[in-house]
């Protein structure tokens, strides 16, 4: 199995490297993998508003995927308002003041909660107990001051 990954750009974002991985062993369409990962990068703030995405051709060559697939991913992201095309060619991350970014963040969190709930169920821990645990951890983290308030 060939496995390729790339840095979306050859420079660093805020100290952390941003990467996209494409794999053909889980059945998810490749364009969707690209869409999901860019959405994740944007929602998690690792791709900031106004940053330029790699050119279609460049990303296609680095990921070793069909350029039409990358173009489709970018179109999809554009339709969802995550990125925007600018006249001088180039695709840029949209201003994320929109409610959409929040919706994406909630979606990412929802997926994690689903995993948590599935695990809790398997361990025979009730939803009430899970809720209580979440509250407890929240206060514990707040009192140590190590967490930032999640934005509302």
């Amino acid at each position, binding site marked *: *199995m*060939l496995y*390729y990954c790339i840095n979306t750009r050859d420079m660093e974002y805020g100290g952390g490297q941003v990467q996209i991985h*494409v794999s*053909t*062993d*889980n*059945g*998810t*369409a*490749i*364009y969707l993998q690209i869409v999901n990962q860019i959405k994740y990068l944007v929602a998690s703030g690792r791709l900031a508003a106004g940053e330029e995405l790699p050119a279609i*051709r460049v990303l*296609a*060559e680095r990921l*070793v*995927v*069909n*350029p*039409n697939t990358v173009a489709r991913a970018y179109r999809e992201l554009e339709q969802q308002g995550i990125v925007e095309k600018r006249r001088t060619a180039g695709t840029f991350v949209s201003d994320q003041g929109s409610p959409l970014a929040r919706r994406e963040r909630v979606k990412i969190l929802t997926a994690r909660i689903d995993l948590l709930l599935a695990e809790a169920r398997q361990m025979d821990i009730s939803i009430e107990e899970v809720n209580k645990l979440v509250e407890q951890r929240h206060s514990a983290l707040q009192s140590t001051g190590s967490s930032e308030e999640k934005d509302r």
Partner: protein
Amino acid sequence: MISSIEANRSCVVDVASVTRKFGDKIALDNLSLSIPRGIVFGLIGGNGAGKTTLIKHILGMYRAHAGTVHVFGRDPVADPVGVLGRIGYLSEDRDLPNWMRVGELMGYTEAFFPSWDRRFAEELCQQFELDKRTRVRHLSRGQRARAGLLVALAHRPDLLVLDEPSSGLDPVVRRDILGAIIRTIADEGRTVLFSSHLLDEVERVADQIAIIHHGRILLAGFMDEIKQQHSRVTVRMSGNSNTPPTFAGMLACEGSGPDWTCVCSGQEDQWRPTVEGVGAEIIEHSAMTLDEIFVARVRG
């Protein structure tokens, strides 16, 4: 006749009802296939399925016993210059002249193609780390593939045909080959046809695919649609039934006891009612890789 060619003007390759036999063995069985301009077309199939035979018809190296082949709207057997001048071809066995040096091979091939791009050829030579003084016979397997790729690409063909380009090569050379496919397609209007056993590669780079089996097309279409049209569904049979479910659209099924994993074709709203109709509870369903779809189709 003219009208059918006119209708397929946007198709670079048009194979219509081609049958070809070798002795008693039917290699191509009433096979039809169209490849539109500007896409990467992946031809997949097992050994002896007919991939290479089909490619050789497209190149005019074989004459169809029945049916017609048109490439760029021309018959490749009747007009080899008009067709082959616009095709870059890397054969499965990379049959390059062993006695030539790489530089000689480049000069020799250049003579056949008016559109040969000398600068691009030099660029590829450097990129592939080929030494022009090396004789073709002394090239490693990977370097031989790269040399074959160089002479297939340097005249910037309208159609690039690669027969099993990756077979027996290490990942670095395979990446060069896939990179070449991607760069070729990124140039507006160029078309790529390649055959491969390595379905993860096909899944990465092909827009459209065809599965060929026993000389026939089992399945052809856009990669995305084909992937959407196949699901793996795990079901639990009601009661104590130990027999596998059977329903319309089921391609394959394996399992034991009450639990079975089936490969379904069609959209979810098509298979869901039929699966539930035979008294099976759907436990989970998931997307499939091209590899899995291929196995289910060929075995089914």
